[in-house]
């Protein structure tokens, strides 16, 4: 049985936030509203990270997804003309996406539930991590020679490539307009 304490209450509230926001995203016809519902949903995910003793990831979640991605989505919406109130568009391939989504959902659910199914008798608590935080450990691991220094540098190259690609694509569009 689930114990009723501050953490479970917080989890319930956050889940309502995440699911409600996600529902808003898919039901609204207004793209800007959709972006804002997404912000709400992502805020809830940041809360999940806090509950999982990963406050650094929570900050990253808010900083990148709300502070940057949501803004970028709205900028993109504004780039397109009169996209804010779309009429219903019939898509003949809806059944294909429905099947894909259901399959993906089943796959994810199985992937999450199966590894912990049957383990841990009632009352047994799985501790995720003894230490809270760990930004310093993360930083040390990122630049350690036997750690993740290679992925760290590759991430930098990836970001550079992303920026160059974005500029090339965006500037070309601009030139065509002119």
């Amino acid at each position: 049985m689930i114990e009723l304490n501050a953490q479970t209450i917080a989890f319930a509230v956050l889940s309502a936030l995440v699911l409600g926001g996600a529902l808003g995203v898919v039901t609204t016809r207004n793209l800007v509203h959709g972006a804002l519902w997404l912000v709400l949903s992502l805020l809830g995910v940041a809360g999940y990270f806090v509950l999982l003793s990963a406050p650094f990831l929570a900050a990253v979640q808010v900083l990148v997804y709300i502070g940057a991605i949501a803004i970028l989505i709205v900028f993109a919406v504004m780039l397109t003309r009169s996209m804010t109130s779309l009429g219903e568009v019939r898509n003949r391939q809806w059944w294909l996406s429905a099947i894909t989504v259901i399959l993906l959902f089943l796959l994810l659910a199985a992937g999450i539930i199966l590894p912990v199914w049957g383990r841990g008798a009632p009352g047994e608590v799985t501790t995720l991590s003894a230490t809270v935080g760990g930004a310093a450990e993360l930083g040390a691991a990122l630049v350690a020679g036997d750690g993740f220094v290679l992925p760290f540098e590759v991430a930098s190259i990836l970001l550079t490539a992303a920026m160059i690609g974005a500029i090339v694509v965006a500037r070309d569009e601009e030139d065509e307009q002119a």
Partner: protein
Amino acid sequence: MTTCVDIINTLSPCLVRAGWNADVANLLSLLLGVVIVATVPLLTVILLIWIERKFAARIQDRIGPNRVGPYGLLQSLADALKMLTKEDITPSGADRILFNLAPIITFATVVLIWAIIPFTPLHIGADLSIGILYFVAVGSIGAVKVMIGGWSSNNKYALLGAFRTIALIVSYEVPMILALLVPVLMAGSMGMQDLTRAQGGMWFIVMSPLAAIIFFVANLAETGRSPFDLLEAESELIAGYNIEYSGFKFGMFMAGEFMHVFTVAVLTAVLFLGGWWGPFVDQLPALGFIWLGLKTAVVYLFMLLIRNTVPRFRIDQVMNINWKFMVPLSIVLILVQSFLLRLIDALGLRPAPEMANDLLANLPQTLVLLAGNLVLGAIFMHLLQRHGRTLREADEALAVVKGEAAPSGGLAEA
């Protein structure tokens, strides 16, 4: 056994000892803490508006508010009452829910920053391990609130103002966050109390004046105050993203701005001016509140001075200052600062842990860091000067070709 003297910090254990339920006691003490922490900025903002108006008046050779109460001290309250009774107009075609939400978010996000301000060595809302990132994260919601306000008004000028403001906020967030890396490098922690404690021997503004200046200027831009008050550019945008707001909703935007400026002053004091550090703070921790207040006042008055004396930049100038000066400078600053810190380690100039709060022990590393900052600053200022001269000469050459009198500065391209 905790004593029940310091009520703010020990409320919960005291209540438990008095026979309360532990969870209820905890929640009560949390609520009390939240209310106290939130009330500090709310009360000060009433005073701040008066200070700001008096200060601006003196600079402009006026008297300022002097009718309501002694020295016009109650002017803000009178204004608040007036705003309460003003008709509130929601423009036709506005998105009602979002339109009402924007001023609330504006104000709330600024209040939320106060959760991590260390008032004294013992008193802080929440000493998070990622304290400084919390500030950045909450601050980044600022762009969202501007977007909501501008978009929901159904006004072209509001939307245009919102987009300009977002571009400005988002751009200046880059040098601001980069500048924040410097204190983190020096303190080895992101927690606000740790960052303050690390300044026991020497304030960070001395160890890295460039970081302090970049942080200060970038935040000045984030608050949207002159010389970065593009959103208020009356002649072009009427009033920015909050043009359609009236009554108390407009008041919330204004109060939020005042409070944001004050919050920036507090953060600058905490991160670079030693926060609550001051004489006798070891014996009497509550004294830290006064030291922090004094430092904040200095930074705040300096911000008012800038606001009232510096003219507004053009939007392209604002963007150039950021991307072509502040961002490169802050990137190079991090490289230099981290190099110097490593060098200090290698040379053994870092004070021993037990001497960390001693001024003399900190002097050698401070000198090295300060010298590095000054040299870097001089190089960048020289480059800027040279660039400015090139621009000016190009302008003058153009004017000669056109057969006009040489225009002054960079106004020629306008």
